[in-house]
């Protein structure tokens, strides 16, 4: 029973992280109409930046042992690493959009795919140029965070860090929904997604908003990259699987739908973690089977879209 509950919680956790990656992809796709193949590499870049930041911070402040006060210090470190990853990725995304992707908006979508695939390869080698090709691992701080026992009261053990990141993701989800539904800029962005020319005519600086949207997408990719760290070491090509899985998520949820991506990410996360426990052979296949099924039965995805996407 506890084992199933843990698998379920793992699924929820994985689904939430997946949602963060997919949300960036779906925002960019829904508003800019660009399928950003380099999104997985932005995720990987976030993971590397976060590893470097946390590693440096821990090295200067505390040694990765002990509990109690040290654990709280580690929470601060890890939080710092996550935020820095997002903060560094946002201008990277803005640069990619403004300088490299902007010239191809009015070209056929094949060229956008080719361009972002080229960017994927280039970012991959920038990463291996900066951090080398060896995989980096940083178990200390996370073990430190997990020294804080939060689930003992409920009668079973579950890593505190995972709860910590779940809260961050839920806050991010709330912030995205709030931004697009309640703030003026968010509403303008939605209007721009429906008719860019009209938005320009009404005096909206659409170039700048496009850049903002891409930076937002990159920010969430970086955030997600930082959060996945304790379950895996960083390595070159770590962005491939999340990229593919976030395609699955945004298709199941409906292209451009944030809420749809949230539900779909949870479904994919839980299904893939339960598949690991019960039928490992179909762990990889299960999400794609769901995706194909949804596309065949309900091509527009589970939820409607708020951009104007055909």
């Amino acid at each position: 029973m506890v084992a199933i509950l843990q698998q379920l919680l793992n699924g929820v956790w994985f689904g939430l992280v997946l949602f963060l990656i997919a949300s960036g992809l779906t925002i960019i796709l829904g508003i800019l109409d660009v399928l950003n193949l380099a999104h997985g590499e932005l995720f990987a870049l976030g993971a590397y930046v976060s590893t470097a930041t946390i590693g440096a911070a821990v090295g200067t402040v505390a040694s990765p042992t002990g509990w109690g006060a040290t654990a709280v210090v580690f929470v601060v470190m890890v939080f710092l690493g996550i935020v820095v990853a997002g903060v560094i990725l946002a201008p990277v995304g803005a640069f990619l959009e403004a300088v490299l992707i902007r010239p191809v908006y009015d070209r056929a979508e094949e060229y956008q795919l080719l361009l972002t695939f080229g960017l994927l390869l280039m970012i991959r080698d920038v990463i291996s140029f900066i951090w080398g090709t060896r995989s980096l691992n940083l178990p200390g701080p996370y073990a430190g965070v997990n020294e804080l026992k939060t689930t003992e009261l409920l009668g079973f053990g579950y890593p505190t860090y995972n709860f910590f990141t779940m809260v961050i993701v839920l806050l991010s989800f709330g912030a995205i929904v709030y931004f697009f539904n309640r703030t003026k800029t968010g509403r303008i962005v939605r209007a721009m997604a429906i008719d860019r020319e009209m938005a320009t005519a009404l005096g909206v600086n659409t170039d700048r908003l496009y850049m903002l949207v891409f930076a937002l997408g990159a920010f969430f990719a970086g955030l997600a990259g930082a959060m996945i760290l304790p379950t895996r070491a960083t390595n070159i090509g770590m962005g491939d699987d999340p990229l593919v899985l976030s395609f699955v998520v945004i298709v199941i949820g409906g292209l451009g739908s944030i809420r749809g991506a949230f539900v779909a990410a949870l479904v994919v996360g839980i299904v893939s973690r339960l598949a690991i426990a019960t039928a490992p052979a179909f762990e990889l296949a299960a999400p794609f089977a769901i995706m194909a099924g949804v596309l065949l039965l309900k091509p527009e995805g589970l939820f409607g879209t708020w951009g104007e996407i055909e």
Partner: protein
Amino acid sequence: MSDAEGGGRFLVTRDGQRHVRLMKGMVFTPRKFAMLVVGVVVLFMVPDIARFTPLPFGSVAQGLMFGIAAVGLNLLLRHIREVSFGHAAFFGVGAYTTGVLTTHYNVASAGVLIVVGVVMATLAAMVVGYLTLRHIGIYFALLTLAFGQLAYALAFGIDFFGGADGIAVRPHNPGRKVELLGQVFSSEVYGILIYYITVVLVLLSLLVMYRLVKSPFVRALDAIGQNRTRARFIGIPVRRYVWAAFVISGIYGGIGGSMFGLFQEYVRPERTLFMFRSGEILFMAILGGFQTLLGPLVGGVVLIFLLQTVRFYTEYFNFITGLILVLVVYFLPDGIVGSLQSGSSARLAFAQLRSEPAAFASDLGDRFRRSMSRLQHTLFGGR
């Protein structure tokens, strides 16, 4: 030979100029014909050239195999104007069929392996094509991607297909080699013979595609690509035609994949089925020029060459490849072959550079200044 249409068997006169006529509907100018002959001869001489120069024989062979798949994909891309992002599925089905038949069923004959490989790929294309033919645009791309990844995940997860390690293309005969015409050859000779078979299949595939492109069927596909609703109104059976085109493109993938399996003698999931292979097949078509017949094949050889050769010279081969793809998008939108054709934007720019270098430079300067001021406007607003 001199009168307008009749003349000799292979030489005809059109518009007062002598043309070479290979068969009905296949007429070349002498220059194009000479290039064709040179191209074919070079293709057959690649193993000999590779012996004396550092030209990597394996990369050229693999490039041709992926190139056939790209030629097939181009039928969808060029005419129906749909992006298939799962074409590695059919390539992989062809390759895996050779692996499964040799390892599990001890089939040693190359001919049987190729035929069954292509048949299996055709069946796969029929199923996937039937399920996807109603979808267009990004949904079509993502649905084909889903089926491609499904095939990858199944090959990866099921032990019968060798799992993550892949499966060897080696029958149980004493030499553990696939037989050609009942003979077992040494590794070196075997590789070259498989290459020659590939070249023959490439030429046949191109010939079929050449005939196909000029057929009413592909004209109808063009109409479907322009507007599906209108195409249906004028009586084109849209769904059946799209299905047929999808299956044909899948057959091309199967040919490439079967030959790949025989050539490599080992099939791994990520070398044949992973979504990046699908992406590469698509990019081969665009890199070479997807508005041309030969483009995808040239793109295939060039891209595989880049991916496999640059890594011997620098650790950062991905960066170089990525940079080249980006530069192609910006400066060679018609692809390699497309840019060589007369009237392409690259040729026009080059002609302007030669005739009026000053105007060309000021043009470039204008464009640079415009994009800079736009960037400034984006960042700081105002004017």
